């Protein structure tokens, strides 16, 4: 079902259909994450991917035309780059340990300590929260700052445009 969604996504020229299909893809992805027992990530995917970003894209669509422009050049070079990168990434996965292998380095490094000690040290039953907010507090502070910077960047970009429009309008009026 996800493959079908992606194929239609890539072939569709109507941007409205693309946005809606993107939302559907996010919901399917959220179901996959629930199946993988990553409920926290699934929740984020459903709320951000399917909810807020779909609405934001629709808002952006409101500002421009609903049909994608015809490509100006041949797709062969980008296609070759994408296929090449994909092949390298697949080659990279060959070196990874098998899926859910208990002997994998990720399961023998700090994970057992977090799983065994988190409840005792922080009295927080949800280990994801304990790791995010306590053991990896610096990382989460950085993440929050990134989100803040993204918001500030959007404000800077869109607000300047608005003032410029106003100035242009005044120039045209005078």
């Amino acid at each position, binding site marked *: 079902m996800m493959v079908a969604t992606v194929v239609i996504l890539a072939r569709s020229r109507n941007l409205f259909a693309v946005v809606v299909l993107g939302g559907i893809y996010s919901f399917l992805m959220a179901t996959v994450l629930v199946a993988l027992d990553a409920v*926290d990530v699934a*929740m984020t995917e459903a709320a951000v991917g399917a909810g807020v970003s779909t609405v934001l894209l629709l*808002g952006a669509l409101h500002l421009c035309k609903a049909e994608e422009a015809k490509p100006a050049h041949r797709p062969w070079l980008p296609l070759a780059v994408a296929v090449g990168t994909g092949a390298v990434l697949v080659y990279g996965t060959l070196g990874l340990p098998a899926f859910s292998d208990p002997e994998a380095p990720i399961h023998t490094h700090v994970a057992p300590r977090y799983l065994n000690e988190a409840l005792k040290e922080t009295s927080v039953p949800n280990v994801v929260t304990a790791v995010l*907010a306590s053991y990896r507090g610096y990382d989460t502070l950085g993440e*929050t700052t990134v989100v*803040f910077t993204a918001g500030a960047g*959007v*404000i800077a970009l869109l607000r300047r*445009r608005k003032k410029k429009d106003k100035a242009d309008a005044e120039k045209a009026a005078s």
Partner: protein
Amino acid sequence: MRNDLVLRVIAKLLIPFILLFALYVQFHGELGPGGGFQAGVIAAAAIVLHVLIFGLDATRRIVPERLVETMLAAGVLIYAGVGVAGLLLGGNFLDYFVLSGDRVYGQLRGIFWVEVGVAVTVSGVMLKIFYMFAARGHDDGEDA
């Protein structure tokens, strides 16, 4: 769309529950799935729904842009403030153990305020971005 009775009634019914669910995700994040980021996004989604149904002007009266912009910065400041509080009480930056007499209780308190900071910033940023996009279409529409 703004005059559609069904949409208005359903939205009025749904928005309080979405906001309540956001608070649940926020404060229950230590016990079940969820946390600051998810709660912030869900709260922002409730207000985005309000914009979609009742229009940008009505929502701006309830959640003014100035408040949203303050939230943007306030969240990061709350988070960093927890770190500085740890410093002032004699620990390292973002050290929660010193926030309370009991080490474990200090951890709980630190995690709680950190999650509040994340939620405030995330919902502020989501709303601000949405406001900016919606305002552009809105103002253009008025000009045309």
